[in-house]
C-alpha cells in the first residue's frame, strides 16, 4: 500500500491510464486547432472532438450536438445559471436552488441576485433531501430556472431528480442540475430524467482536469444560454475559446469507460463503502450524514461525536479524506452543507468524508477503518467532553467559559 491512502475521490480522481493513453497523440502529433478548416491538422483535431462529443453525450443519453465543452463544472454551472438569467430575463427573474449546492452554483446565484434577479434557497431535510412540496411552494410566475444538484459532493445524497423535473415541466420552468458527482457513477439520462441543462466534469470520473461540459437541450424545449465569454463563437456560440482537444479526447474516453464499467463498479464500490461504514458505525456515537438509501454508492460521510476536527485530521494523516466540522476552529472552516442539515445544533462533533474510487482496494479500506478507529478512540480518551458524556452530563446544560 502507498501512503497516504487516497479516499478523496469526490475532490478529484486519478486519471485512468487508458484515458492518458488516448490523450497523448493530441499534444504534439495531432496538435491541430479543431476550428482550423484549411488543413489536415485541423480536420483530425475536429474529428477527434466529434468522436469525443459522441462518447460524452452517450453517457448521459444526449445527442452530441447538445454538448457544450467548458473548462469544467464550475464554468458549466456559471454558464447555465447566468446564461439562463440573461437569455430568459424577459420572462422572469426568479430562480430556485438549495442551500447544500456547490459553491459554483451558490455563488453564480449570488451573482444573479446582484444583477437584479431573485433567488429562493430551499433548505433540505435533516437527511439532505428536499421536500418537493417546498419546491412547488417556492415557484412564482417569475420563476425561470430550478437548479438542484444530482448527487451531493459532501454527503452523496441523490435528489429525486424525476420528481423535480416533473414539477419544473408542469410549470414551464427550465431545470438545471449539477451532476458532477453523479455522472459516471450512477445512470444519468437527460431524457428519462427530464433535465434541460446538466453540468459535469472529466476529473471526477478518471479523466483530466480542466475540461467539462454543459448539456443544453435542443428539443422539447429548445434551450439557449447567453455566452459568458466573448470570442470566436465556438460551441454553437455559447462558449468561445479554442477547444482543449487533448482534454476533450480524454473526457470522451473517460465517459466511454464509465459507460462500460459503471454498473459493476457501483456494485463493487457500494459493497466496500457499506463495509467501511458498518465497521466505523460499530463505534459509539458515530453517525452517517445524509440519507443512507438515496445516495451515491462510493460516498460515506460519518460524524464522530466528542472529537474535534483538526485533531482528527492530525490523527488520520495516513489517509487522504476530507474533513468537515460544524464548529468553528481557527483553521478548519465549518461545512455549510452539514450546517444546513441542522448538525450545528449538535455540539462538538467532526466528520470525515470518504470518497472511494476505481482504484480503491479492500486492503486500503481495512487500513482506513483501523486508522480512523484508533484516532477517534485516542482523541476520545483525552477528551473531557467524552468523559462528561460517559458520566451522563448534559453538555448543553453547562455554562461554558467562552473565549
Amino acid at each position, binding site marked *: 500500500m502507498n501512503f497516504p491512502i487516497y479516499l478523496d475521490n469526490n475532490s478529484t480522481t486519478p486519471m485512468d491510464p487508458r484515458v492518458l493513453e488516448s490523450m497523448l497523440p493530441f499534444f504534439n502529433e495531432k496538435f491541430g486547432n479543431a476550428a482550423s478548416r484549411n488543413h489536415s491538422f485541423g480536420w483530425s483535431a475536429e474529428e477527434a472532438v466529434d468522436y469525443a462529443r459522441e462518447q460524452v453525450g452517450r453517457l448521459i443519453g444526449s445527442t452530441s450536438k447538445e454538448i457544450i465543452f467548458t473548462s469544467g463544472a464550475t464554468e458549466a454551472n456559471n454558464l447555465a445559471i447566468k446564461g439562463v438569467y440573461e437569455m430568459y430575463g424577459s420572462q422572469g427573474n426568479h430562480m430556485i436552488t438549495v442551500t447544500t449546492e456547490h459553491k459554483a452554483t451558490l455563488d453564480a446565484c449570488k451573482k444573479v441576485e446582484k444583477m437584479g434577479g431573485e433567488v429562493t434557497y430551499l433548505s433540505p431535510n435533516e437527511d439532505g433531501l428536499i421536500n418537493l412540496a417546498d419546491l412547488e411552494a417556492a415557484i412564482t410566475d417569475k420563476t425561470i430556472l430550478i437548479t438542484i444538484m444530482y448527487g451531493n459532493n459532501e454527503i452523496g445524497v441523490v435528489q429525486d431528480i424525476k420528481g423535480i423535473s416533473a414539477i419544473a415541466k408542469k410549470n414551464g420552468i427550465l431545470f438545471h442540475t449539477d451532476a458532477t458527482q453523479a455522472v459516471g457513477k450512477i445512470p444519468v439520462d437527460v431524457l428519462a430524467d427530464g433535465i434541460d441543462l446538466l453540468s459535469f466534469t472529466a476529473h471526477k470520473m478518471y479523466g483530466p482536469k480542466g475540461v467539462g461540459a454543459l448539456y443544453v437541450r435542443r428539443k422539447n424545449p429548445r434551450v439557449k444560454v447567453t455566452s459568458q465569454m466573448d470570442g470566436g463563437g465556438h460551441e454553437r456560440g455559447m462558449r468561445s475559446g479554442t477547444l482543449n482537444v487533448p482534454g476533450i479526447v480524454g473526457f470522451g474516453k473517460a465517459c466511454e469507460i464509465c459507460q462500460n464499467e459503471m454498473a459493476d463498479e457501483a456494485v463493487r464500490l457500494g459493497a466496500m463503502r457499506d463495509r467501511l461504514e458498518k465497521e466505523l458505525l460499530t463505534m459509539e456515537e458515530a453517525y452517517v450524514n445524509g440519507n443512507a438509501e438515496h445516495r451515491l454508492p462510493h460516498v460515506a460521510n460519518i460524524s464522530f461525536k466528542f472529537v474535534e476536527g483538526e485533531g482528527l485530521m492530525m490523527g488520520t494523516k495516513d489517509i487522504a479524506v476530507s474533513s468537515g466540522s460544524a464548529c468553528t476552529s481557527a483553521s478548519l472552516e465549518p461545512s455549510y452543507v452539514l450546517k444546513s442539515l441542522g448538525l450545528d445544533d449538535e455540539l462538538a462533533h467532526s466528520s470525515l468524508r470518504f470518497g472511494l474510487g476505481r482504484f480503491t482496494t479492500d486492503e486500503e479500506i481495512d487500513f482506513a477503518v483501523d486508522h480512523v478507529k484508533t484516532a477517534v478512540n485516542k482523541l476520545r480518551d483525552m477528551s*473531557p467532553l467524552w468523559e462528561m458524556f460517559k458520566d451522563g452530563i448534559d453538555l448543553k446544560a453547562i455554562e461554558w467559559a467562552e473565549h
Partner: protein
Amino acid sequence: MAYSEKVIDHYQNPRNIGTLDKESKTVGTGLVGAPECGDVMRLQIEVDDATGVIKDAKFKTFGCGSAIASSSLATEWLKGKSVDDAMAIDNMEIVEELALPPVKIHCSVLAEDAIKMAINDYRVKQGLEPIEDDKKHY
C-alpha cells in the same frame, strides 16, 4: 498546516492524560473553552498540603493538536512547582516552547487560563481568596 516537532510529539505521546478527584480539597480543576469554539481544556492539579507544591497534574483536552500539546506541556511544567510559581506561568512561554504559529496562540492562552482557574479552584477550597489576574482571559 505544518505542526512543530514538539507539538507532534505531545499529540502522539500526550503526558499526564487523566482525571483527578475534583471533589478532593487538595485538587483544583480548571475547565475552559467551549465546544462550539472547537476547544475545551480541563486541567487539574493536586497540591501537597504540607509543602504547597503541586505533586500531580492531569489534563483532558478536546481540540486541535496545538491545544492538546499546550495542555500536555502545561501539566509537565506544573508538576513540582509551588502554587505561586505555577500562577506565574505565562502563555507566551508555551508559545515559544511549542513554536506555535499566530493562529494557535489562543491554545496557549487557554492553557494559561486553565492553570489559573485550577489554582483558584484549589484556593477557594482551602478557604483562600481567589487571585484576581489582570491578564485573565476567561
